[in-house]
């Protein structure tokens, strides 16, 4: 049976029309959820591959409204989550951003640097608008912190499978599975990401999490240029079939 896969892309990279075609290519290959990153000038949680894609999208004139337009179109094809940074949300106004996400049909928001307790009101705004706000949890999380996070009853939790930033390969061992085991007790749907680029990893995570998340591997493929749409579809198909 084919597993779930959340596939990530950077909005307006390499340009708006292509990013819509990329969503289609991902869904064609078997992606079951789409994570659309709204570029920010200073993406501190991202490695060089995604940083570069964000830079290029911004140089190409990306505006936050373009991001919502893309979400609206993508949401017709698959469930969509928006990923970005606090300043993008805050500058728009947290409630406005949540409302615009809802209007565009997004299912949830992953905002890397607005965490429970330091969220500037994001979780409250999400609750009142019926928008899922998805906290990130890391393997070094303490029990106390995990309790704080689960006390807000998130429907989804994004599990970063190692410390550090996006893009570097993660080696999965017993510890990774134990980490996912800890998270499973929370009752939330676990989205597991960071450093996942092979079918083997996806298969392994497919059993232990709600869905694996693959990001930099696709962005890297796009950066190589040429007929990347076909390659992305093939890569996605390979990932979901293990």
């Amino acid at each position, binding site marked *: 049976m084919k597993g779930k896969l959340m596939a990530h892309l950077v909005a307006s990279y390499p340009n708006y029309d292509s990013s819509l075609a990329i969503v289609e290519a991902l869904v064609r290959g078997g992606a079951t959820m789409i994570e659309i990153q709204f570029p920010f000038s200073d993406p*501190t949680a991202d490695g060089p591959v995604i940083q*570069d894609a964000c830079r290029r999208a911004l140089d190409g004139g990306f505006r936050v409204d373009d991001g919502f337009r893309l979400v609206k179109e993508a949401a017709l094809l698959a469930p969509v989550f928006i990923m970005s940074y606090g300043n993008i949300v805050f*500058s728009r106004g947290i409630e406005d951003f949540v409302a615009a996400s809802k209007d565009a049909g997004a299912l949830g928001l992953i905002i890397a640097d607005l965490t429970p307790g330091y969220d*500037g009101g994001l979780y409250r705004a999400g609750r009142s608008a019926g928008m899922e706000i998805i906290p990130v949890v890391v393997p070094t*999380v303490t029990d106390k912190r995990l309790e704080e996070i689960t006390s807000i009853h998130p429907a989804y939790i994004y599990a*970063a499978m190692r410390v*550090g930033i996006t893009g570097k390969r993660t080696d999965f061992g017993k510890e990774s599975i134990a980490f996912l085991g800890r998270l499973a007790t929370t009752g939330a749907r676990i989205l597991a990401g960071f450093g996942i680029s092979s079918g083997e990893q996806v298969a392994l995570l497919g059993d232990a999490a709600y869905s694996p998340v693959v990001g930099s591997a696709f962005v890297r493929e796009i950066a190589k240029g040429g007929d990347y749409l076909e390659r992305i579809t093939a890569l996605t198909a390979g990932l979901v079939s293990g």
Partner: protein
Amino acid sequence: MIVESFFGSFGGRYVPEVLRTPLDELETAFREAMEDETFKNEFARLCKNYIGRPTPLLFAENATEKLGGSRIYIKLEGLANTGAHKINNAIGQALLAKRLGKKRIIAETGAGQHGIATAAVCAKLGLECRVYMGEVDIKRQHPNVFWMELYGAEVVPVGSGSRTLKDAVNEALRDWAGSFPDTHYLLGSALGPSPYPDMVREFQSVIGKETEKQIAGMEVEALVACVGGGSNAIGFFYPFIDKPFPRLIGVEAGGRGSLIGDNACRMDGTGKIGIVQGYKSLFLMDDDGQLQATHSISAGLDYPGIGPQLAGLGKKGRIEFKKASDTEALDALRFFARNEGIIFALESAHAGAEAIKMAHNGDPEKALIVNMSGRGDKDIFISAMALAPRDWILFLKEEMKIYEG
């Protein structure tokens, strides 16, 4: 309270989840250290014997006479070892890192002053050191790269974003997200996620505490300091922020004009409230929240954000913000060199420029205290090119001839 974290609505700890653990750990260690006499004595001992504290407060007699107004005094932070105030904080945090058992230090640098201070302190205390520096800054401050490497540090060029100070901060944060178990991030300005603004201010407040003693009995009109991120300013102002006097004046980089991208003025109404690099403050950014390019002749003031405590004190009206242009800073550099035999760092020359303006119309019975946060030797490639371009270019060509010989 030593860790305030929020200053009015500014400050906070807005970081990716992974950085919570090291920041919590750092806050605890910092609180404990500041209660520990052994730690404080060690800091004081290194301040005295290694940095050369207390730094003098000089009466700028010739400058005062020439301007014919208020009496100008200069706090000579530039006489600190490595040439600027940056080393006060570097020593404090490096001692804290040792206390935490960290073996490795990472730091960002713009002009190179914080990088040099950190590299020197790591050599002194036996810590491994890596400094992130934007490619643009590496080009304009190459001599500082040489010094950092001489101290044994590894200097890593940052090619992302605008390739300047803010991008070096981003890269250091990324490194730390994966390396915190054995690494301390030695942030150089009074900004970033809590507890950095409190911690950097605390270690830099040695400047203000000395000044307070040195000006005892004087009638002081104002304290004047340049403001990039703001570490010298907040350290200098700190003992006075809860008092109504003297006036506290922060000077931002007016650059080459008032258009976005031509200066680094955040407190003149241009800065918008944002959450960037772990803290809420005023930033130069567009409507979407993307940070904007900045410009200053001094690499140390060329940064789009401002420390949260300064932003809070600005909003409250306790600190007044002014600006000095590239040209005014160069004029001040020349003025104090000719009249006082002192070469200001280009950053500090912005404070010097404001003091010149104020002294003109000032009360002769009152004193203006300028913080010369650094000395200007490091700027020779920029100052000489701006003030004596023909001779300087000739010199550079002659040098090249020798090597290409």
